[in-house]
């Protein structure tokens, strides 16, 4: 399968205010998304998953490493970004905020094509995108304004706006986190349908392991700026190896295992611990201390999708 989107050794560091250490939001990440594949990026708040998603669409400029779209490293000139975004689109968490309240649905969906000069038969393109996103009949929705629609419909408009450019990849940052449970399923089903009908690839960022289980082909678990475990959805969620993934899964209601509650301070990207970055909170290390955990840095996972499951841990390899 062809790789449509890739990051190589990506780092994003936010400069700090005077006196404080800079925040290493993304601290060495390799990840590949292949054609027609849905990859879920999961992790807790503040682990850098949203920063990674923004770096993937060029909204955040990496301090190191590369974003590679369709085999070509992403340039950061206005023209290069525009060309890149023709085939990599973003879907944001809060559809209410992601739509300009003063734009009609038609204008919101037509915006991408207009900006890229695709104004030939614009109406048809917009209506097709609306229909693909499940807003049927499109004529009925084209004239509405965001505040006249439900959250699920708004998210469909955002997705239609991305589809109007006929992208190859969609990066979705918590696409259903702000929606009702009943609507979540519909939007996730829509993403799956688009993958099947259009061959669309997607990177879905979420904190929800259940969501990853439902739609993803592969899962990458992120902790404190780095991917700590990656593999197919079955490998990672049914046979987790990294103690962090295991702790996340153990607190799900139907995990069947005693819940492992993580102790210690929540992770802070301005002071990443040495050695394994999870060691201060690691239940495995607490049970059987190993000098490598605090002292020996782990290599960055390669992110090669054809390799079997990878986990960044001294104790489970």
């Amino acid at each position, binding site marked *: 399968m062809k790789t449509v989107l890739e990051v190589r050794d990506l780092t994003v560091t936010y400069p700090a205010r005077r006196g404080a250490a800079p925040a290493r939001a993304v601290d060495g990440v390799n990840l590949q998304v292949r054609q027609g594949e849905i990859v879920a990026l999961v992790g807790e708040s503040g682990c850098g998953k949203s920063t990674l998603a*923004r770096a993937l669409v060029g909204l955040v400029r990496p301090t190191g490493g590369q974003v590679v779209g369709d085999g070509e490293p992403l340039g950061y000139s206005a023209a290069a970004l525009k060309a890149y975004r023709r085939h990599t689109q973003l879907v944001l968490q809060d559809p209410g905020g992601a739509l300009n309240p003063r734009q009609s649905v038609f204008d919101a969906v037509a915006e991408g094509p207009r900006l890229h000069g695709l104004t030939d038969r614009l109406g048809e393109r917009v209506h097709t995108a609306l229909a693909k996103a499940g807003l049927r009949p499109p004529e009925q929705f084209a004239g509405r304004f965001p505040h006249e629609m439900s959250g699920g419909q708004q998210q469909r408009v955002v997705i239609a706006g991305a589809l109007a450019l006929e992208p190859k990849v969609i990066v979705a940052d918590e696409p259903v986190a702000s929606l009702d449970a009943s609507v979540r399923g519909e939007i996730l089903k829509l993403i799956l349908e688009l993958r099947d009908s259009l061959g669309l690839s997607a990177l879905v960022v979420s904190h929800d392991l259940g969501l990853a289980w439902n739609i993803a082909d592969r899962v990458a678990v992120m902790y404190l700026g780095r991917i700590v475990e990656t593999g197919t959805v079955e490998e990672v969620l049914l046979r987790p190896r990294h103690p962090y993934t295991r702790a996340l899964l153990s607190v799900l209601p139907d995990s069947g295992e005693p819940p492992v509650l993580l102790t210690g301070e929540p992770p802070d990207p301005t002071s990443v611990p040495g050695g394994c970055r999870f060691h201060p909170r690691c239940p495995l290390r607490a049970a059987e201390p190993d000098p490598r955990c605090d002292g020996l840095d782990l290599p960055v996972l390669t992110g090669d999708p054809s390799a079997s499951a990878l986990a960044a841990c001294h104790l489970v390899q």
Partner: protein
Amino acid sequence: MSAATHTPAALDVPRHHAFGRFCRAYAKRPAGLAGLGLLVAFGVLALAAPLFIGDDQLNVIKVDGPQLSPPVDGYPLGTDQAGRSVLLLVIWGARESLSIGLIATALTVVLGSAVGLLAGHYQGWVGKVLMHVTDWFIALPSLPLAISLSAVLGQGAASITIAIAVTSWTATARLVRAQTLAVEARPFIERAKVLGAGNTQIMIRHVLPNVMPLILVSSTLTVASAILSEATLTFLGLGDPTGVTWGSMLQAALMGGAVTAGAWWYLMPPGIAILVVVLGFTLVGRAVEHVLNPRMVTR
């Protein structure tokens, strides 16, 4: 751009709805309607003035009324020291007072919005430079600046208009910049960037429409203060000495000894006219503000 590509009904209907909603909400605010009524009355009078006021009533050589007379038959608001009807002068003065106020406001709003929008969008050195320039203009004392400007440009309506615009655009710029910063932080700006929008498109298509209500509200309030400034500056003798405005009437009254003569009919009407027009614009501005700001509707 898109009107031809899909049914007009789909695009136009909501716009009408929005405008209709605005009108209905505005109609529920009696103070706003009263203000609008005052402004319409003054506007109609000012526009229609040439139909019933001619050189015969305004030229000090041609008029034949009693001099500095209290209200009498034929002169409902009395006369000035040259024998002109104060009522007709007040109506005639509305023309220049209103036009200077409106033109100065237009300049203020355009300049202030442009600077505010650019300073809010380009937050790097461009924004810093623009805000420093704005601060510099804020620090300039407006009255001496206006006096020196009219000394350079010559007395008259044009220099007064420019002087008002130069000294009042800073408030609009600061307001628009603050709102621009708030709008720029919203997610739809991020979405627009990813869809391929450049700086200009983001500013014009996304920021400006969302800042517009605020600009509208602030401009109605700016008109009020521009009319006051115009009166102040002409009262100080910086206006066109041959023209009639409310400010120049007050000045003429003072110079002509209306105060010592107790000629209240000469002093009061232009003062009350200024008060009423400023009140009208303020009432309209407040009503528009309430209608456009959904968080204030509940009251």
